[in-house]
């Protein structure tokens, strides 16, 4: 079995986020890191591979400038290899374009199972996994908070508005996982060292035989109506009185 894990490499979200006034895209920091959301996908894939008795786990990523730092983190966790697609034409790529690139890599490496996160931290379109599935003609088992593989049958617990559904499909398929499904492992020192020599294939759009047209445009970025801080009080042992006053003022009490 071959599992492809979609991993997005993003600017460190703990650093200040700014928007470039000309391209109106998010400025990318110096370092690309593995999106936290995708660390869950990597962990799930590694566990499924262990259960299946040694499946290959291939990380697939589309990144504007051949970034590999984030991918190395996933390799250090234990993934087998990685494929990174970069092309100047992909700057500002929308979700469908991204999905076309990822689906084409899935076909190229001939994976049976694709794992992605429900949404990325910086883009959070939240449609890429189901678009990848649609392009491949596979089912998408989305919003999985638990996943199991029995033989070639996938079974997940799919989050719903008021609980969860158990959903099943036979491979091949795409699964999108929510955060918190598992605790992603920390790369060990040995893992970090061995990641340096694991294969990372770099591809361009041409290598995949793809050309893209991006049909979306950012027109403007403006300040939203701001909500300002009101009164701030320290709890000196009687702050409940302040809260009671406020509740009375807004007629909740």
């Amino acid at each position, binding site marked *: 079995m071959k599992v492809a894990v979609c991993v997005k490499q993003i600017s460190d979200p703990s650093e200040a986020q700014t928007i470039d006034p000309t391209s109106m895209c998010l400025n990318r920091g110096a370092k690309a890191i593995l999106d936290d959301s995708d660390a869950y996908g990597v962990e799930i894939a590694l566990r499924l591979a262990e259960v299946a008795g040694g499946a290959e786990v291939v990380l697939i990523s589309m990144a504007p400038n051949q970034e590999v730092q984030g991918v190395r983190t996933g390799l250090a966790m234990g993934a087998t290899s990685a494929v990174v697609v970069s092309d100047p034409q992909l700057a500002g790529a929308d979700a469908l374009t991204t999905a076309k690139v990822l689906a084409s890599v899935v076909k190229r490496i001939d994976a049976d199972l694709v794992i992605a996160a429900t949404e990325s931290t910086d883009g959070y379109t939240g449609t890429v996994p189901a678009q990848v599935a*649609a392009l491949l003609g596979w089912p998408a088992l989305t919003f999985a908070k638990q996943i199991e593989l029995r033989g070639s049958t996938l079974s997940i617990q799919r989050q719903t508005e008021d609980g969860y559904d158990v959903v099943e499909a036979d491979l091949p398929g795409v699964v999108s996982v929510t955060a918190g499904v598992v605790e992603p492992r920390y790369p060990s020192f040995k893992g970090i060292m061995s990641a340096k020599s694991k294969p990372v294939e770099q591809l361009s759009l041409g290598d995949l035989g793809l050309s893209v047209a991006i049909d979306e445009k950012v027109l403007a970025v403006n300040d939203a109506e701001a909500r300002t801080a009101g009164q701030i009080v320290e709890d000196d042992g009687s702050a409940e009185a302040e809260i*009671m006053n406020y509740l009375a003022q807004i007629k909740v009490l």
Partner: protein
Amino acid sequence: MITNCVILAEPQGTGIAPVALELATLARGISEQVTAVVFDVDAQAAAETLAVYGVTSVVSLGDTSSHLPGVPVADAMREVVDRVGANAVFVAQSYTGRDVLARLSVLLDAPVLTNAVNVREDDGGLVVENLVFGGEKVVSSKITAPIQLIAIRPKSVAAEAAPSATQPSVTEQSVSANSQANRAVIVSSHVEERQGPKLDEAEVVVSGGRGLGNADNYRYIEELANLLHGATGASRAIVDAGWVPYAYQVGQTGKTVKPNLYLAVGISGATQHMVGMKGAKNIIAINKDKDAPILQIADLGVVGDAQKLLPRLIEAIRQKTGA
């Protein structure tokens, strides 16, 4: 010019989800014809409701409940889009909405814009607004393809009845369930029961975060919510930690709430949390850290230890209400 807009009126409980009425309100503002696609509901009853909001026709797909909606509903919607010559499709930013829109985007080879909080007409086209950085900035974007596929966050626009009700035609359309990809079968459904008002409809929401210290302390949140006749909510941190079910989550991946009062306890105010509660009329936050971002948007911010303050607050409310 948008002439025909198709909206997905997804089911909730035995009827259609309230967000469908928000979609209808938005759609009729920009498009003369509004076709609503419904499934797994009583189509006549749904049409009566949608008529109040100006929907001009209703297409019912019957019962699709044995499979995940993504494939069958998108297949059917594609037919509807072709038949009515739609140039815009609105769905909710929900589990179902996202799955359907993603499939539809591939079927029509058209891009999507998601997380929209507003859609307006401009220069014959549509401008879609969404919020970034926890609601600090509004990004306006445009789709340059012939069809506009848009997912709208619930509670972004108010549902308003049309000046006069319509008399929508109701047609049945069967779904072809034999597509290769339509293999995701729903084996069983589990509802996590909860008491009190619904999170996204409650006038008062009391939410807890990691600052509660442990799962057991969530009982303070339940008690407060109960005393204030509100619903209980949570940050993702404590949902992920397994203290409370997913259905409690407020924020970007959880519910959007717009109550009269949002009381946030031990929640830092990450951008992804704020985007789900910033629309509350009044915000009270209790946090140990005076620099916590949530205090920047709170009308009343209390810097203090929640574990010490909550029992006192609960007692004070009890005394006042005699509960």
